């Protein structure tokens, strides 16, 4: 998957626990863990917006495009 999720980095920077973020966003910790590890096919705009609001960041801080063809 060329889209890499950098959520764990932002969580560490903001010193926010996964449990707290999951509770704020309204998803399970299991789903947040899947999102952090990149094992999801997509993310809803509502979820992304809630994460950005809680972590005070932009979607670009959480998602990164890595061109796998150039590697």
């Amino acid at each position: 998957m060329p889209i890499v999720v950098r959520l764990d980095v932002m969580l560490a920077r903001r010193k926010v626990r996964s449990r707290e973020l999951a509770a704020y966003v309204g998803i399970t910790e299991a789903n947040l863990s899947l999102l952090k590890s990149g094992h999801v096919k997509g993310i809803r705009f509502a979820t992304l917006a809630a994460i950005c609001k809680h972590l005070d960041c932009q979607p670009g801080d959480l998602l990164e495009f890595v061109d796998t063809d150039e590697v």
Partner: protein
Amino acid sequence: MERAQWSGAPTVRRVRRVVQVLGISLVALYLAMWLRPPNPVVEVLRAGPGGNPWVEAAMLIGAMGLFAALLQLERVLGALERGFPFTREIVTGFYRFAALASGSMFIVVAAPTLGSLTSLVPHGVAITLRMIDVLLLVICLSFFAVAALIAEAVRIDRDNRSIV
């Protein structure tokens, strides 16, 4: 992954009861047919007096297939009643039901023609089709389309659950 219970369980429970009654009735009908041959209604079902054994065998195989199809449908409905409508178990079960029902109906539809082919009296082959049987066969075949739709629903459900 967490999944919500679906709301159709009470309806499925009622349909399941109907299927159970139909299956038991089918077995009872055929037992009555073989145990009490003088019954005139039974004689009609047995392809006429002194019926052709090939036709009788075909009708019996058809009835057994229909019973197996009902059994399969009962299992599918049982799985539906327990919880989640979009699972691989339900898809494979529904495909099996469609195959068994269609196969049985095909045998039932073909039985009179088979009787004509295997008749001891020399005459031309008569292809006999009853409209109601053909209609039932088409309905049974349409269950394949329903199974394909459920398979697509399973795929969409799986995709949807992997979006957070």
